[in-house]
């Protein structure tokens, strides 16, 4: 079974999905799926498929209201990812700093 973190990353690994997600984040409100379709040069089916993957990853919430389906972005799952990247980011920064020091001392 895939954990939520992996799902998040996989959902955002696709450039079209990143674009859709980004657009929804910028809009910051629930918008009809038809509007999402009109914003992108992808078929309605394509958009629906992408939205489904984003929804599974918790990055998008889809709600039906009357005859319209609305979607809204949720950035929460990204926090976990940031934690991880931040962890190794700092780890390698620190390590490379000590490598720089080590090389500096060696050359003297």
């Amino acid at each position, binding site marked *: 079974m895939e*954990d*939520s*973190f*992996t799902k998040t*990353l*996989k959902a*955002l*690994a696709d450039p079209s999905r990143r674009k859709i997600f980004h657009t929804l984040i910028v809009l910051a409100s629930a918008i009809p799926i038809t509007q999402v379709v009109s914003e992108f040069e992808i078929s309605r089916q394509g958009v629906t498929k992408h939205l489904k993957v984003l929804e599974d990853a918790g990055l998008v919430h889809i709600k039906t209201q009357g005859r319209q389906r609305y979607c809204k972005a949720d950035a929460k799952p990204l926090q*976990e*990812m940031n*934690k*991880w*990247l931040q*962890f*190794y*980011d*700092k*780890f*390698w*920064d620190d*390590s*490379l700093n*000590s*490598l*720089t*020091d*080590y*090389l*500096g001392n*060696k*050359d003297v």
Partner: protein
Amino acid sequence: MIATNDVITKEVVFNSKIDNVWNAISIGEEISKWFLKADFKPEVGYKYSFRSPNDDCEQIHGEVKEATPYKLVYTWIVAGTNVETKVSWELQSTDEGTQLYLKHSGIAEYDEDTAIKMFESFNGGWDNCISGLTDFL
């Protein structure tokens, strides 16, 4: 920091000759001086391990996948986890010295529990083993 999906990329220029940098990253005795206590050889297939400097417990292990000057690639498995990530070092001579491209990929494979363990351990500056799990197993 350049982070695309699950990859961390670092680019650093060292004011040192390429062979000095290569030795520093690929020879166990040298790695031990600036990084973690290393049992490491730049030979493809070598099963290396990095230990914490103070305690002597294993932190990281993996296998060397590529070791031809000036490119070094190895898998990176944190003790107590089954998650295999990959670290790649590439060096290039430049006018100022040596350019390093470091890439750590596969970070997406970690689950959240591992994240918490790693954070706790890292906050202790790697001095503490990630041993809770290792001992348990």
